[in-house]
């Protein structure tokens, strides 16, 4: 008997500015009713393309070049437009990443639900409101009346995703394709959304294809696994065996790189690098940075004189040679704190004592000329956006040397840049490339090389790996750890991901609503969290079931 959904030998091509590009080849997938399949892979692996080709959503420039997709006996590739239209949303539903932008921004949520219901004749004008209430209730939305009459921008990301799920459930479809449904959401929200999806799937007997880059999430919620790399399926497994005993080297690499509850930075690659096997030096007792009563107040523009404290009385210290983790969800004030320390913003109140000197007392002009500008540097979140697209790698790394060290001699610059590139493991033939010709990991290395060029004492890492694939993240984390040990740097590691922070940091701060709610040694915080918020955070981390 044929399975519920059967993809055989799928090959998809796209017409792009660089000519015809094959996105996936030879993809096979089969799934039965009530299966929850994870399609795992890093960016560019072709996992989303595979999902989109099921509903023929490849857009104008993409097409299925080869292969077959059969759904419940229907050939979806050769299907007429009308048939596909009726299958979309009715038989097979889909939810996407960035729920805020997948809902029509200027149409009320209720109307969008009603569009869907009426399109598929699930309700009439009269019965729609009742049905909508039912649906919203199903996705565990409490204040149904408010949500129904709300525009998407008035709802939180998690709420929007719930609405999307409600849309997907509206017609009792039998297959749900979830394309990275939790990307961009906070960890705690992630968990509740995934719990909801898996609960509903069980209840409604839904088959689910979960497309994700997160092995942890896959292992927690799915029962079948497909690993993809560069448009090909590299490994398939019908059970959790894959986590214990991965066959393909890529799966092994991926598995190693995925931070688990207990993984250490040195084991993020299948073969641990030598330098990390040495025992790390003990952090010194000397205080490098002390933050005292830091407050940052913003005036809200649309309302009269209403203010909002992004950072609300923060105190902490960083010792020399130490990595301090700063964790919190989006909007908690962690970025503002780091930007104030990096002197990209001015504090409203409080002191930033760097080696005993209050930086807030130095004017902007003086600061640029002072030693402190060299001593505090930063690595940014977005490896692409943080590199000037018109500068070559050489120019990018040389910029701080020219500006802050006043090195103008070309040969001196040349040797320094090469040395730095070498230090961060950047091949010297990449040195005259432009950012768009580099991979994500290479860009991250350039960012790090630039930051350490002027030999700073404190390096602020602002979510340095959140835009990277896990395998790249692993290498970058190892690089950072190596540099800290070799150069005796101190880090302030800002991230939303406790699991990542944990691996590099000796101590951890947890921030919520502009305040620090928990601080302590990494092991203490992870194993014995005191505040309720930290507990939820830790619980929300997907557990690798193995």
């Amino acid at each position, binding site marked *: 008997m044929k399975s519920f959904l059967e993809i055989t030998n799928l090959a998809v091509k796209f017409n792009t500015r660089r000519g015809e590009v094959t996105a996936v080849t030879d993809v096979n997938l089969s799934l039965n009713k009530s299966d929850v399949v994870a399609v795992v892979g890093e960016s560019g692996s072709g996992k989303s393309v595979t999902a989109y080709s099921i*509903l023929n*959503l490849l857009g*104008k420039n993409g097409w299925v070049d080869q292969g077959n997709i059969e759904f419940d006996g229907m050939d979806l590739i050769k299907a007429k437009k009308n048939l596909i*239209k*009726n*299958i*979309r*949303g*009715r038989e097979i*539903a*889909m939810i*996407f990443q*960035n729920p805020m*932008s*997948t*809902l*029509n*921004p*200027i*149409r009320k949520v209720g109307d969008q639900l009603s*569009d*869907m219901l009426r*399109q*598929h004749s699930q309700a009439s004008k009269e019965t729609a409101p009742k049905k909508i209430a039912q649906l919203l209730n199903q996705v565990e939305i409490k204040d149904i009346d408010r949500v129904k009459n709300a*525009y998407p*921008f*008035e709802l939180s990301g998690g709420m929007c995703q719930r609405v*999307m799920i409600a*849309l*997907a459930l509206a017609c009792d479809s039998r297959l749900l394709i979830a394309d990275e449904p939790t990307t961009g959401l906070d960890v705690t929200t992630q968990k509740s959304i995934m719990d909801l999806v898996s609960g509903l799937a069980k209840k409604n007997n839904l088959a689910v294809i979960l497309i994700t880059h997160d092995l942890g999430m896959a292992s927690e919620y799915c029962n079948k696994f497909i690993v993809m790399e560069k448009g090909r399926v590299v490994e398939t497994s019908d059970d959790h065996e894959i986590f214990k005993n991965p066959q393909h080297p890529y799966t092994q690499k991926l598995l190693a790189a995925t931070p688990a509850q207990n993984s250490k930075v040195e084991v993020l690659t299948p073969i641990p690098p030598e330098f990390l096997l040495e025992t790390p030096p003990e952090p010194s007792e000397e205080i490098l940075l002390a933050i005292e009563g830091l407050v940052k107040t913003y005036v809200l*523009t*649309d309302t009269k004189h209403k203010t909002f404290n992004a950072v609300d009385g923060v105190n902490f210290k960083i010792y020399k040679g130490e990595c301090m983790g700063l964790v919190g969800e989006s909007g908690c004030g962690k970025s503002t704190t780091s930007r104030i320390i990096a002197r990209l913003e001015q504090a409203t109140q409080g002191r930033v004592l760097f080696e005993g000197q209050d930086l807030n007392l130095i004017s902007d002009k003086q600061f640029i000329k002072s030693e402190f500008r060299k001593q505090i540097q930063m690595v940014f979140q977005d490896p692409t956006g943080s590199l000037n697209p018109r500068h070559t790698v050489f120019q990018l790394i040389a910029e701080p040397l020219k500006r802050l060290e006043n090195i103008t001699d070309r040969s001196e610059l040349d040797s320094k840049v090469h040395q730095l590139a070498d230090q961060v493991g950047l091949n010297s033939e990449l040195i005259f490339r432009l950012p768009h010709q580099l991979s994500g990991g290479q860009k991250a290395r350039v960012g790090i090389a630039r930051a350490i060029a002027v030999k700073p004492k404190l390096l602020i890492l602002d979510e340095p790996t959140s835009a990277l694939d896990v395998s790249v993240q692993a290498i970058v984390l190892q690089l950072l750890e190596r540099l800290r040990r070799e150069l005796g740097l101190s880090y302030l590691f800002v991230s939303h991901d406790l699991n990542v922070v944990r691996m590099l940091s000796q101590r951890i701060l947890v921030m919520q609503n502009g305040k620090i709610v928990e601080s302590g040694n990494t092991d203490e915080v992870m194993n014995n969290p005191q505040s309720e918020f930290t507990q939820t955070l830790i619980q929300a981390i997907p557990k690798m079931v193995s």
Partner: protein
Amino acid sequence: MWTQKLKLIGQRFALATPTLLGVIIIAFALTRALPGDPAVYFAGITADEESIQQIREELGLDKSLVIQFFVYCENLLKGDLGVSLSTGQKVSEELSSRFPASLELTLTGLFLALITSIPLGILAAMYPNSWVDHLCRVLVTAGASTPIFFSGLFFVFIFYYLLGWAPSPIGRLDFIYLPPPHVTGFYTIDSMIAGDTETFWASLKQIVLPAITLAVFALAPIARMTRSAMLTALGSEYVKAATANGLNSRTIIFVYALRNASLPLLTIMGLVFSYLLGANVLVEKVFSWPGIGSFAVDALVASDYAAVQGFILCMALLFVFLNLFIDILYTLVDPRVGIDG
């Protein structure tokens, strides 16, 4: 939410004030810098020094510029725009009698442009890089590239002089008709109100050719904006999601894409409108249309301060109110305005 929106509208009003002040100052400075002594101009053909001086005093031109400016502002507050020296009428009367003509023409042009260019833009966005897209692009660009004085002249030549399809280019109505009783000032509407279909057709015939000339010129910005906004909307996540949800293409294009695309379209309408008002000047010249554009050109040539200033103020006011209107419309269409703004 509504109080917030009202507040926002109030803010827009406040924002317009410095613009208006700037306009008054620029208008004043500009017109005072015009060459040619109006006193000499209006003294008549055989006037001598003495009578010129007499007229100069009469016009207040012997006083300092600062005083002239304050006198002007004072008069302005009283709603007195002065007397146009070249037509001899009160500027306020002159403008109000000519304004409907310009507005009727501009709006008709805009309407024609909208009903042709929006479908064109949508078509082009639905089939990007197809022949439809290319054709649309070439057509609208050619329209925007044609100097309006050139197209106007050739339209008259072809459609009036050679083919005789269009009526003579002599303004809003042919000689044989009398203007309909004044209600809105728009001859087409007023004649409908009066139930005079003959005059209605006559005025409609007069307006078609100049309005088409204008519309051809305005096709491009609207069609291109429609196309790009539609492309953005059609390529957006929510359209993709709506497609995945199986909504039919009619709903997707009109309810999901077009309504979102109408927002950027709205914002350029103000610009298009002012663009058309500027183009009006030349069209009114070619078609002898008795609007404020041709009035302003004549006034400018005659160094007619009061008229030029009145015209500029009238335009600025119109523009400010138009933008306000667009803002309000925008607030009504886009629920997000006023919340995160």
